């Protein structure tokens, strides 16, 4: 019966979307959103218990399945979407009160939020590469609407850019998917040629030439969504112009889910090609993203753009690590995905609250937070220190492991990585210091908001850095075995 639980967990947000759409702009929408997310979280934990008891399983005639690689991502999505809904409850209320947002759009906002969550959960749980593609497309469409929520010229422009670029990317990914099907078609034939579980069993027998081209399309396609350089043009605008909760889930979840898709296909392609050419491809993309992302930081004045570029850098790091391959690197990459998801969302919560309090997103206009609002100031400080990888936060652990793995596999890349990390640290900390300390600027009326979500995330990140739960570690290790050659 717990097979059905999986389906339920996926369907909860969809149902919630309908409900919230119906609720429209009523105040109850906020709490209802939280409730739906909580329900999703409950479903996810139920599913997790099942996985802990008896390993990975599939349901609905192998249409849905869960394995160590996806289970922690599912939990991550459920958890972060829940905390984000908590945050958005207070934040969006304030936005409406401050007159930034037309209350009539709240219905769309909440509904699309849940659709987005649904799409990501579907992408993670589905066993069918076609459905995976549909889910990613759905995520694109829903977020396009969310990004343009404010209907300001800037937000519309950003949403348009996002729609076009990610649309093209997704289309390319579809061609890749078709080619994988084409390659598997002659081996498995028919519908089974789309199922992960079956594909993995025959990955050695897929035609390498086709798989190579397929992987090119897939990495370019889904890579656009991950925000790999040079396909990242949409990312800063989308993060900067969308509502803050959406920036949080975009950076924290969507990028990771897209990377998840790439990683699965990479395993397939490497199995077929019997070389780690796909890995090299990912290493290249990863390094480019790390370097460009880090170097682009210093010319940003908009607080959310700054952290958007830091997302480019971190996703690049994860991609790089996945590209290295091998148990250690993959372990590190998965850890990095998790830590980054938690940290970056907490960073966006805080910086959104900061922007709301200061009344501007321009960092030059924000000073002396720690005197005006100590809790907020210290949270921002802690979050940005966490994102630049200072211990004891989790990102430090993953970066350390990635360095070691890189020294094993590609020593030449280590100086570049160190350079990028140093630059990112310098720029972000300098900006944060300027915002947190100094004389308080023009004092805005502080808006009521809860810092519960960032606090919760920070606690989790510290746990990741000091003592990774053994269950999680076990998952990572199994996932690494699954993905690794």
């Amino acid at each position, binding site marked *: 019966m717990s097979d059905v639980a999986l389906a339920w967990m996926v369907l909860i947000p969809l149902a919630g979307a309908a409900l919230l759409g119906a609720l429209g702009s009523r105040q109850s929408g906020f709490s209802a959103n939280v409730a739906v997310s909580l329900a999703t979280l409950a479903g996810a934990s139920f599913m997790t218990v099942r996985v802990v008891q008896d390993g990975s399983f599939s349901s609905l005639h192998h249409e849905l399945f869960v394995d160590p690689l996806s289970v922690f991502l599912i939990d991550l999505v459920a958890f972060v979407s829940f905390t984000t809904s908590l945050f958005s409850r207070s934040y969006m209320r304030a936005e409406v009160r401050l007159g930034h947002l037309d209350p009539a759009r709240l219905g769309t906002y909440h509904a699309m939020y849940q659709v987005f969550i649904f799409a990501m959960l579907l992408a993670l749980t589905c066993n069918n590469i076609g459905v995976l593609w549909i889910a990613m497309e759905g995520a694109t469409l829903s977020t396009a609407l969310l990004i343009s929520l404010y209907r300001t010229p800037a937000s519309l422009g950003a949403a348009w*850019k996002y729609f076009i670029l990610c649309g093209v990317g997704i289309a390319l990914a579809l061609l890749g998917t078709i080619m994988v099907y084409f390659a598997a078609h002659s081996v498995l034939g028919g519908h089974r040629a789309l199922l992960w579980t079956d594909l993995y069993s025959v990955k050695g027998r897929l035609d390498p030439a086709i798989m*190579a081209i397929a992987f090119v399309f897939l990495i370019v396609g889904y890579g656009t969504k991950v925000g790999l350089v*040079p396909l990242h043009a949409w990312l800063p605008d989308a993060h900067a112009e969308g509502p803050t909760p959406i920036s949080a889930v975009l950076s924290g979840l969507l990028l990771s889910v897209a990377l998840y898709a790439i990683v699965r296909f990479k395993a397939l392609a490497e199995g077929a090609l019997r070389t780690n050419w796909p890995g090299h491809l990912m290493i290249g993309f990863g390094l480019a993203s790390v370097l460009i992302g880090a170097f682009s930081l*210093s010319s940003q004045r908009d607080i959310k753009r700054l952290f958007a570029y830091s997302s480019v850098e971190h996703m690049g790091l994860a991609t790089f690590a996945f590209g290295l391959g091998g148990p250690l690197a993959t372990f590190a990459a998965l850890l990095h995905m998790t830590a980054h998801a938690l940290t970056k969302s907490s960073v966006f919560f805080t910086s959104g609250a900061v922007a709301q309090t200061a009344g501007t997103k321009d960092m030059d206009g924000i000073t002396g937070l720690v005197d005006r609002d100590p809790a907020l100031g210290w949270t921002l400080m802690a979050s940005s220190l966490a994102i630049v990888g200072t211990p004891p936060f989790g990102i430090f652990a993953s970066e350390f492991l990635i360095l070691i793995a890189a020294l094993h596999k590609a020593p030449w890349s*280590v100086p570049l990585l*160190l350079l990028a990390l140093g630059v990112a640290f310098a720029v972000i900390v300098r900006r944060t210091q300027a915002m947190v300390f100094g004389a308080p600027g023009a004092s805005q009326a502080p808006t009521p908001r809860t810092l519960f979500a960032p606090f919760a995330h920070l606690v989790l990140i510290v746990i990741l850095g000091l003592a*990774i739960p053994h269950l999680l*570690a076990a998952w990572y290790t199994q996932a690494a075995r699954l993905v690794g050659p």
Partner: protein
Amino acid sequence: MNVSIGLPWGLILSALVLWSALAFASPFTVRFPRIAPFIFPLGAVGALCVATAGLLALHGPPVATISPLGLPGLPFHGRLDALSGFFLILFGLTTVAISLDLAGYRRHEHYPTAERIGAQYHILLASLTLVFVAADSYSFMIAWEAMALSSYLLVITDHLSGATRRAGFLYLLIEHVGALALLAAFAILIAQGPAGAPLSFTFTALHAAHPDAAVAGLVFILAFLGFGAKAGLIPLHVWLPQAHPVAPSPISALLSSVLLKVGIYGLLRVAFIILPTPAPWWGLTTLSIGLMTALLGALSSAVQNDMKRLLAYSSVENIGLITAGIGLALLFSAYGLKALATLALIAALYHCLNHAFFKGLLFLGTGSVLHATGERRLSRLGGLIHRMPQTALLMLIGTLAIAGVPPLNGFVSEWLTLQAFLKATALPRPYLAMGIPLGAALTALVAGLAGYVMVKFYGIVFLGRPRDAQRAQARESGRLERAGLGLLALLCLLAGVWPAGVIALIRPAAHLLSGANAMITTGDLGARVGVGHATYVPWVLWIALGAIALAAILILRVRAARGARRVPVWNCGHPLASARIQDTAEGFGQPIRDVFAAFLAMRRHRPAQDDRVPRYASTIEDRFWQGLYQPAARGFALLFAATATRQPRRIAISLLGVLMTLIGLLVLAP
């Protein structure tokens, strides 16, 4: 290794718990002012515990422990050996004094109170302890960065001033660059293990890695960069003279006395214990960098006009001397002269201890002066010996100690260092044997400069007459502050008169590092310290000096019919118009500026003939700042600008990028 929670660990854990509690409690002193007075004294108690633990750890086998925390398969390892023990003692004793002094700060409202810095301060103490006892690279890095961050927060306590923020950021930045170097060093060692095998981060495992010469050299360079950045060796010293002055004085004391030594500790730990036998060039590099740092520090401190900057540069100088000693030890052990290596190490560690004591004393003293006068510029101070006689007396001890004159402690380590230099003739390479005594000469020059600097410092701050009218109303500092000063002064005297006692503390550590006993003898009620036939017996000197001075006083006083008559100053008949005719700090630095003009980047503003208000100003800048850091900053700025302009803005361009990527990859596809 035997895992146990013995008495030492018990003490350390209790100190950690106590400090965490205090850190947690400090912010609440606003709401409950009644607990405020107890915060820092309790912190001192914790420091005492740590010092005791260090003392216990000196003798007896190294005690290891494994914490429940940690990454999977990587619990945090702790290890208490003689080296940790020695540094824990240094840290504990100094911190007791500093905490006492801080406790005295309560009455000054806009000075660091428990409410403002209690949390950071006690977190810093805890992380320092962890750095000294960490036995695996992961927990070491965590403690290391926690230390860096908390100290950074302490540095920018007065964050309203832009200069403070800049200095704090520079500190944190260089700190982190160093940390990245350390990270790389550890990662390289860890990656030495077989690819498949489970990683092990413990220092013992890293030692077992046995990297080949090239890798070991690379690791040494990286570690040297990392720990050098912490200790303030050139060219990474620039943060030090900026960060130490802007911090609250007790914090400056902690930074100078303890945090710089952490860099030394790490260098010793990596170079002697973790890495295999050093190559000669390690020693040579360390030695020359150390000597250059010492010279630069001494010269720069001689030309400073801000009393805390002066002391900060003097810290650079002392760290340089310590590093030079370590370099000597590395050279000796590279050529297998273990006994001599031990001698050099004892000299270096002795100087660590001394510097902790007298620099702490001096910085705390500047804190008292700052309270009394609210003035840091030497050109405004003067004559405080009349206003705050007790502080002045204690500071005189510190001044003489750092000037390295017998029979105080500064001289003992200088003496040992010179003895070690003299033994360098034993080195098999002639150019080394000939060159290194010149190092001894450089050391002597630096010591002489230190004397010059200290005369300038003490003479201008405490002697003469107040250069500024409203500074004349200074009050003697509080009882607790003087207690802190007194404790450190006492330690200076003790370490000066009873070298054998100190050497007994150092010997196990040095032995652990070099693996041999030193050719160094102590005797005569534990006060004689000898290298070969050369001996130095401080207490005999004390007695002889005292006896003769006493005899002179007695004879002359007895014979003198009348006591001295108090009159106005003679001054060759010129009446003393104003206090402005006294020599200024600038004036005192003038000879140095002229003799060593080549080493200093100086800009002078001279009055023109027709100036209404003629003013003379000269600013000294660090050559490294102009020559190294500004160009680097410009380079990065260019790089960033280039990247920013290359970002695709238009959708069409981005799509073109996608197309190009696609085509390129399809071409590449196998």
